[in-house]
Protein backbone atom coordinates (compact mmCIF):
# COMPACT_ATOMS: atom_id res chain seq x y z
CA UNK A 1 0.00 0.00 0.00
CA UNK A 2 1.47 3.31 -1.02
CA UNK A 3 0.87 6.17 1.31
CA UNK A 4 2.29 9.44 2.52
CA UNK A 5 1.62 8.64 6.16
CA UNK A 6 1.56 5.62 8.39
CA UNK A 7 -1.88 4.34 9.17
CA UNK A 8 -1.81 3.63 12.93
CA UNK A 9 -4.54 1.09 12.38
CA UNK A 10 -2.10 -1.00 10.40
CA UNK A 11 0.61 -0.90 13.06
CA UNK A 12 1.21 -4.15 14.98
CA UNK A 13 3.59 -4.91 17.86
CA UNK A 14 6.97 -5.74 16.37
CA UNK A 15 6.57 -3.53 13.33
CA UNK A 16 9.36 -1.10 12.58
CA UNK A 17 10.39 1.78 10.34
CA UNK A 18 13.25 1.91 7.90
CA UNK A 19 14.68 5.05 6.43
CA UNK A 20 16.71 5.91 3.38
CA UNK A 21 18.04 9.27 2.34
CA UNK A 22 17.96 10.12 -1.34
CA UNK A 23 21.11 11.99 -2.27
CA UNK A 24 21.28 14.59 -4.96
CA UNK A 25 23.50 12.78 -7.41
CA UNK A 26 23.40 15.71 -9.76
CA UNK A 27 25.60 17.54 -7.33
CA UNK A 28 28.16 14.81 -7.80
CA UNK A 29 28.56 15.49 -11.45
CA UNK A 30 25.95 13.20 -12.85
CA UNK A 31 23.93 15.98 -14.37
CA UNK A 32 22.02 15.66 -17.54
CA UNK A 33 20.02 12.79 -16.21
CA UNK A 34 18.59 13.59 -12.85
CA UNK A 35 19.32 10.70 -10.54
CA UNK A 36 19.55 10.06 -6.85
CA UNK A 37 19.90 7.04 -4.62
CA UNK A 38 19.82 5.96 -1.03
CA UNK A 39 20.78 2.56 0.35
CA UNK A 40 19.09 0.81 3.26
CA UNK A 41 19.43 -2.53 5.05
CA UNK A 42 16.48 -4.73 5.96
CA UNK A 43 17.44 -6.40 9.26
CA UNK A 44 14.93 -9.28 9.20
CA UNK A 45 12.90 -10.99 6.51
CA UNK A 46 9.98 -8.58 6.43
CA UNK A 47 6.81 -7.66 4.68
CA UNK A 48 6.31 -4.16 3.36
CA UNK A 49 3.17 -2.61 4.81
CA UNK A 50 3.44 1.00 3.68
CA UNK A 51 5.92 3.27 1.98
CA UNK A 52 6.24 7.03 1.69
CA UNK A 53 8.63 9.53 0.17
CA UNK A 54 9.32 13.22 0.56
CA UNK A 55 11.29 14.89 -2.22
CA UNK A 56 12.53 18.44 -1.99
CA UNK A 57 14.52 21.02 -3.87
CA UNK A 58 15.48 18.78 -6.69
CA UNK A 59 14.98 21.22 -9.53
CA UNK A 60 13.79 18.12 -11.25
CA UNK A 61 10.99 16.96 -13.42
CA UNK A 62 9.06 13.75 -13.56
CA UNK A 63 10.96 11.92 -10.88
CA UNK A 64 10.47 8.20 -10.76
CA UNK A 65 11.59 6.34 -7.67
CA UNK A 66 12.26 2.61 -7.64
CA UNK A 67 13.63 0.03 -5.25
CA UNK A 68 16.58 -1.99 -6.44
CA UNK A 69 18.11 -5.17 -5.18
CA UNK A 70 15.15 -7.09 -3.91
CA UNK A 71 15.77 -10.70 -2.92
CA UNK A 72 19.47 -10.13 -3.13
CA UNK A 73 19.44 -9.60 -6.87
CA UNK A 74 22.33 -7.34 -7.69
CA UNK A 75 20.96 -6.02 -10.89
CA UNK A 76 18.23 -3.47 -11.09
CA UNK A 77 14.72 -4.64 -10.52
CA UNK A 78 11.96 -2.18 -11.08
CA UNK A 79 8.98 -3.11 -9.03
CA UNK A 80 6.91 -0.03 -9.26
CA UNK A 81 7.54 3.63 -9.11
CA UNK A 82 6.71 6.62 -7.04
CA UNK A 83 6.27 9.35 -9.60
CA UNK A 84 6.42 13.07 -9.03
CA UNK A 85 5.20 14.79 -12.14
CA UNK A 86 5.67 18.36 -13.16
CA UNK A 87 7.95 20.88 -14.72
CA UNK A 88 10.01 21.21 -11.60
CA UNK A 89 10.12 20.37 -7.94
CA UNK A 90 10.74 23.26 -5.65
CA UNK A 91 10.28 23.50 -1.95
CA UNK A 92 9.16 20.24 -0.46
CA UNK A 93 6.92 17.89 -2.30
CA UNK A 94 5.32 14.83 -0.89
CA UNK A 95 5.16 11.99 -3.32
CA UNK A 96 3.74 9.72 -4.56
CA UNK A 97 1.43 11.57 -6.81
CA UNK A 98 0.81 8.31 -8.56
CA UNK A 99 0.21 5.96 -5.68
CA UNK A 100 -1.50 3.28 -7.66
CA UNK A 101 1.62 2.30 -9.53
CA UNK A 102 3.33 1.53 -6.24
CA UNK A 103 0.40 -0.41 -4.92
CA UNK A 104 0.53 -2.57 -8.00
CA UNK A 105 4.20 -3.27 -7.69
CA UNK A 106 4.75 -3.48 -3.97
CA UNK A 107 1.65 -5.16 -2.56
CA UNK A 108 2.47 -8.22 -0.44
CA UNK A 109 6.13 -7.69 -1.14
CA UNK A 110 8.58 -9.63 1.02
CA UNK A 111 12.07 -8.26 1.61
CA UNK A 112 14.79 -10.72 2.50
CA UNK A 113 17.50 -9.64 4.93
CA UNK A 114 19.74 -7.76 2.53
CA UNK A 115 20.90 -4.39 1.26
CA UNK A 116 18.67 -2.45 -1.10
CA UNK A 117 18.56 1.02 -2.47
CA UNK A 118 16.03 3.57 -3.49
CA UNK A 119 16.85 5.07 -6.83
CA UNK A 120 15.28 7.98 -8.62
CA UNK A 121 15.49 8.98 -12.20
CA UNK A 122 14.05 11.96 -13.96
CA UNK A 123 14.88 14.98 -16.00
CA UNK A 124 16.10 18.34 -14.89
CA UNK A 125 19.12 20.27 -13.87
CA UNK A 126 19.73 18.63 -10.52
CA UNK A 127 19.11 15.35 -8.78
CA UNK A 128 16.42 14.98 -6.16
CA UNK A 129 16.95 14.98 -2.45
CA UNK A 130 14.47 13.38 -0.16
CA UNK A 131 13.56 10.87 2.46
CA UNK A 132 12.06 7.47 2.03
CA UNK A 133 10.42 5.49 4.80
CA UNK A 134 9.05 2.00 4.91
CA UNK A 135 6.69 0.48 7.45
CA UNK A 136 7.91 -3.11 7.79
CA UNK A 137 6.62 -6.21 9.56
CA UNK A 138 8.98 -9.07 10.38
CA UNK A 139 8.20 -12.45 8.83
CA UNK A 140 9.24 -15.67 10.54
CA UNK A 141 10.84 -15.98 13.95
CA UNK A 142 14.20 -14.33 13.65
CA UNK A 143 13.16 -11.11 15.33
CA UNK A 144 11.48 -12.75 18.33
CA UNK A 145 14.70 -13.03 20.31
CA UNK A 146 14.88 -9.24 20.41
CA UNK A 147 11.50 -8.75 22.05
CA UNK A 148 10.59 -5.09 21.93
CA UNK A 149 13.20 -3.64 19.59
CA UNK A 150 14.17 -0.31 18.06
CA UNK A 151 15.78 0.08 14.66
CA UNK A 152 18.26 2.83 13.83
CA UNK A 153 18.71 3.14 10.09
CA UNK A 154 21.01 5.75 8.61
CA UNK A 155 23.97 6.06 6.30
CA UNK A 156 27.50 7.29 5.84
CA UNK A 157 28.27 9.88 3.21
CA UNK A 158 30.04 8.95 0.02
CA UNK A 159 33.13 10.45 -1.48
CA UNK A 160 35.35 10.28 1.58
CA UNK A 161 37.59 7.68 3.18
CA UNK A 162 36.12 8.13 6.64
CA UNK A 163 32.97 9.41 8.25
CA UNK A 164 31.43 9.38 11.69
CA UNK A 165 27.91 9.74 13.00
CA UNK A 166 26.40 9.23 16.44
CA UNK A 167 22.91 8.73 17.67
CA UNK A 168 21.49 9.66 21.07
CA UNK A 169 19.78 6.80 22.90
CA UNK A 170 16.22 7.57 24.05
CA UNK A 171 15.54 4.62 26.41
CA UNK A 172 17.33 1.79 28.21
CA UNK A 173 18.33 -0.74 25.61
CA UNK A 174 20.91 -3.29 24.53
CA UNK A 175 22.68 -3.39 21.18
CA UNK A 176 21.88 -6.76 19.59
CA UNK A 177 23.10 -6.56 16.02
CA UNK A 178 24.80 -4.16 13.64
CA UNK A 179 24.53 -4.32 9.86
CA UNK A 180 25.81 -2.52 6.82
CA UNK A 181 26.41 -3.02 3.14
CA UNK A 182 28.01 -1.70 0.01
CA UNK A 183 25.96 0.40 -2.34
CA UNK A 184 28.43 0.51 -5.20
CA UNK A 185 31.45 -1.59 -6.10
CA UNK A 186 34.23 -0.44 -3.81
CA UNK A 187 37.96 -0.74 -4.18
CA UNK A 188 38.89 -1.38 -0.55
CA UNK A 189 37.57 -3.20 2.49
CA UNK A 190 35.12 -1.29 4.64
CA UNK A 191 35.51 -1.30 8.43
CA UNK A 192 32.91 0.19 10.75
CA UNK A 193 33.54 0.75 14.42
CA UNK A 194 30.61 0.98 16.82
CA UNK A 195 31.37 2.47 20.21
CA UNK A 196 29.39 3.48 23.26
CA UNK A 197 30.00 7.13 24.02
CA UNK A 198 32.90 7.15 21.57
CA UNK A 199 35.07 5.11 23.91
CA UNK A 200 33.80 1.59 24.67
CA UNK A 201 33.84 -1.00 21.91
CA UNK A 202 30.47 -2.43 20.93
CA UNK A 203 31.45 -4.10 17.68
CA UNK A 204 33.79 -3.91 14.73
CA UNK A 205 32.04 -4.74 11.48
CA UNK A 206 34.00 -5.43 8.32
CA UNK A 207 33.04 -6.33 4.79
CA UNK A 208 34.01 -9.90 3.96
CA UNK A 209 35.53 -8.91 0.64
CA UNK A 210 38.52 -6.71 0.07
CA UNK A 211 36.54 -5.18 -2.78
CA UNK A 212 32.87 -5.14 -1.75
CA UNK A 213 30.49 -5.56 -4.64
CA UNK A 214 27.36 -3.66 -5.50
CA UNK A 215 24.59 -4.01 -2.90
CA UNK A 216 26.64 -6.27 -0.67
CA UNK A 217 25.34 -7.06 2.80
CA UNK A 218 27.31 -7.68 5.98
CA UNK A 219 26.35 -7.98 9.62
CA UNK A 220 27.61 -8.84 13.04
CA UNK A 221 25.77 -10.36 15.92
CA UNK A 222 26.99 -8.88 19.13
CA UNK A 223 28.74 -11.73 20.90
CA UNK A 224 28.73 -11.25 24.64
CA UNK A 225 32.15 -11.07 26.18
CA UNK A 226 33.70 -9.21 29.01
CA UNK A 227 35.04 -6.51 26.78
CA UNK A 228 31.75 -5.50 25.22
CA UNK A 229 29.19 -6.57 27.84
CA UNK A 230 28.94 -3.18 29.49
CA UNK A 231 29.31 -1.31 26.24
CA UNK A 232 26.23 -2.98 24.83
CA UNK A 233 24.09 -1.68 27.69
CA UNK A 234 22.86 1.80 26.90
CA UNK A 235 20.56 4.26 28.54
CA UNK A 236 19.40 7.79 28.45
CA UNK A 237 22.33 10.14 28.02
CA UNK A 238 24.43 7.60 26.11
CA UNK A 239 25.09 7.65 22.42
CA UNK A 240 26.29 5.20 19.79
CA UNK A 241 29.13 6.38 17.63
CA UNK A 242 29.54 4.76 14.22
CA UNK A 243 32.71 5.42 12.26
CA UNK A 244 33.90 3.86 9.04
CA UNK A 245 37.30 3.76 7.49
CA UNK A 246 38.48 2.43 4.17
CA UNK A 247 41.68 2.79 2.23
CA UNK A 248 39.92 4.54 -0.62
CA UNK A 249 37.00 6.89 -0.81
CA UNK A 250 33.71 5.10 -1.15
CA UNK A 251 31.75 5.65 -4.34
CA UNK A 252 28.31 5.17 -2.86
CA UNK A 253 26.73 5.86 0.50
CA UNK A 254 27.09 3.12 3.11
CA UNK A 255 23.92 2.13 4.99
CA UNK A 256 23.91 1.54 8.75
CA UNK A 257 21.31 -0.46 10.64
CA UNK A 258 21.48 -1.06 14.39
CA UNK A 259 19.05 -3.38 16.20
CA UNK A 260 18.40 -2.33 19.79
CA UNK A 261 16.48 -4.42 22.31
CA UNK A 262 14.53 -2.42 24.84
CA UNK A 263 15.16 -3.48 28.42
Amino acid sequence: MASTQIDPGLWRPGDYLLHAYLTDMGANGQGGTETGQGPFVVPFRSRLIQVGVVVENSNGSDNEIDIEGLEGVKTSMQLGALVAEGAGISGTNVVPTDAQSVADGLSDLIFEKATYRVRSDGTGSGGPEGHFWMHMRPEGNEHIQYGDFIIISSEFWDGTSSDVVHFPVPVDCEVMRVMSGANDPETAQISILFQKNASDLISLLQSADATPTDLEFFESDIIPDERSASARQLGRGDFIECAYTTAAGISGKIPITIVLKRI
Partner: protein
Amino acid sequence: MKIFIFGRFESIDVAGAVSAEQGRVQCFAPAHGFVTEVLGSMDADTGGLNQRMMLRSGASGQTEDFIGGLNTAGMIDAVSILECESPVAHPELEVGCNDWFTLDSQGDGATGVDSAGVCIVFETA
Protein backbone atom coordinates in the same frame (compact mmCIF):
# COMPACT_ATOMS: atom_id res chain seq x y z
CA MET B 1 2.06 4.11 19.37
CA LYS B 2 5.51 5.51 20.07
CA ILE B 3 7.90 5.82 17.15
CA PHE B 4 11.58 6.73 17.38
CA ILE B 5 12.78 8.66 14.35
CA PHE B 6 16.53 8.79 13.92
CA GLY B 7 18.38 11.08 11.57
CA ARG B 8 21.71 12.69 10.95
CA PHE B 9 22.68 16.15 9.87
CA GLU B 10 23.51 17.06 6.36
CA SER B 11 26.79 18.83 6.13
CA ILE B 12 25.71 22.17 4.83
CA ASP B 13 29.22 23.51 4.68
CA VAL B 14 29.93 21.11 1.82
CA ALA B 15 27.32 22.98 -0.18
CA GLY B 16 29.13 26.19 0.43
CA ALA B 17 26.94 27.89 3.00
CA VAL B 18 29.73 28.47 5.44
CA SER B 19 29.04 32.00 6.54
CA ALA B 20 26.66 30.82 9.22
CA GLU B 21 27.38 27.49 10.78
CA GLN B 22 24.37 25.40 10.11
CA GLY B 23 23.10 21.96 9.32
CA ARG B 24 19.83 20.26 8.70
CA VAL B 25 18.05 17.04 9.45
CA GLN B 26 14.83 16.26 7.69
CA CYS B 27 12.49 13.58 8.87
CA PHE B 28 9.10 12.70 7.60
CA ALA B 29 6.27 12.73 10.13
CA PRO B 30 4.87 9.29 9.51
CA ALA B 31 1.47 9.85 11.05
CA HIS B 32 -0.79 12.26 12.84
CA GLY B 33 0.51 12.74 16.36
CA PHE B 34 2.71 14.63 18.76
CA VAL B 35 6.38 15.24 19.20
CA THR B 36 7.07 14.41 22.83
CA GLU B 37 10.85 14.49 23.04
CA VAL B 38 13.83 15.56 21.01
CA LEU B 39 17.36 14.35 21.60
CA GLY B 40 20.36 15.61 19.72
CA SER B 41 24.07 15.08 19.67
CA MET B 42 26.85 17.18 18.21
CA ASP B 43 30.46 16.25 17.75
CA ALA B 44 33.52 18.18 18.71
CA ASP B 45 34.83 18.31 15.19
CA THR B 46 32.15 20.73 14.13
CA GLY B 47 34.27 23.60 15.31
CA GLY B 48 31.07 25.18 16.41
CA LEU B 49 30.10 27.82 18.89
CA ASN B 50 26.76 28.33 20.58
CA GLN B 51 24.91 25.78 18.56
CA ARG B 52 21.17 25.82 18.44
CA MET B 53 18.97 23.04 17.11
CA MET B 54 15.51 24.15 16.13
CA LEU B 55 12.85 21.63 15.32
CA ARG B 56 10.11 22.79 13.05
CA SER B 57 7.30 21.09 11.28
CA GLY B 58 5.02 22.11 8.50
CA ALA B 59 2.49 20.59 6.18
CA SER B 60 4.47 19.79 3.06
CA GLY B 61 6.80 22.59 3.97
CA GLN B 62 4.24 25.24 3.24
CA THR B 63 4.19 26.52 6.78
CA GLU B 64 6.62 25.94 9.56
CA ASP B 65 5.92 25.89 13.26
CA PHE B 66 8.68 26.13 15.77
CA ILE B 67 8.51 23.12 18.06
CA GLY B 68 11.46 23.48 20.35
CA GLY B 69 15.11 24.19 20.61
CA LEU B 70 18.27 22.61 21.93
CA ASN B 71 21.12 24.87 22.82
CA THR B 72 24.77 24.65 23.61
CA ALA B 73 26.83 27.46 25.02
CA GLY B 74 30.38 28.05 23.98
CA MET B 75 32.74 25.76 22.12
CA ILE B 76 31.75 22.13 21.77
CA ASP B 77 34.74 20.19 23.03
CA ALA B 78 33.16 16.74 23.26
CA VAL B 79 30.09 15.03 21.97
CA SER B 80 27.24 16.92 23.54
CA ILE B 81 23.94 15.23 24.26
CA LEU B 82 21.05 17.65 24.27
CA GLU B 83 17.56 16.87 25.40
CA CYS B 84 14.26 18.60 25.01
CA GLU B 85 11.70 16.53 26.89
CA SER B 86 8.84 18.91 26.47
CA PRO B 87 8.97 20.86 23.25
CA VAL B 88 8.98 24.32 24.65
CA ALA B 89 7.19 26.55 22.22
CA HIS B 90 4.26 24.36 21.34
CA PRO B 91 4.02 21.58 23.90
CA GLU B 92 0.74 20.40 22.47
CA LEU B 93 1.59 20.89 18.85
CA GLU B 94 0.06 18.22 16.70
CA VAL B 95 1.84 17.04 13.63
CA GLY B 96 -0.50 16.01 10.91
CA CYS B 97 -0.35 13.80 7.93
CA ASN B 98 2.19 14.76 5.28
CA ASP B 99 4.03 16.97 7.72
CA TRP B 100 7.75 16.89 7.85
CA PHE B 101 10.29 17.85 10.47
CA THR B 102 13.18 20.09 9.88
CA LEU B 103 15.82 20.22 12.55
CA ASP B 104 18.01 23.15 11.71
CA SER B 105 21.18 23.91 13.50
CA GLN B 106 22.73 27.31 13.56
CA GLY B 107 25.60 28.79 15.44
CA ASP B 108 28.69 30.88 15.35
CA GLY B 109 31.64 29.30 13.70
CA ALA B 110 33.52 28.71 10.53
CA THR B 111 32.04 25.37 9.50
CA GLY B 112 28.68 23.69 9.45
CA VAL B 113 27.54 20.95 11.75
CA ASP B 114 28.72 17.70 10.28
CA SER B 115 28.77 14.88 12.77
CA ALA B 116 25.50 15.13 14.58
CA GLY B 117 22.57 12.85 15.12
CA VAL B 118 19.06 13.24 16.39
CA CYS B 119 16.25 11.14 17.84
CA ILE B 120 12.73 12.48 17.66
CA VAL B 121 10.23 10.69 19.86
CA PHE B 122 6.89 10.73 18.22
CA GLU B 123 3.53 9.58 19.62
CA THR B 124 0.71 8.91 17.24
CA ALA B 125 -2.59 10.48 18.12
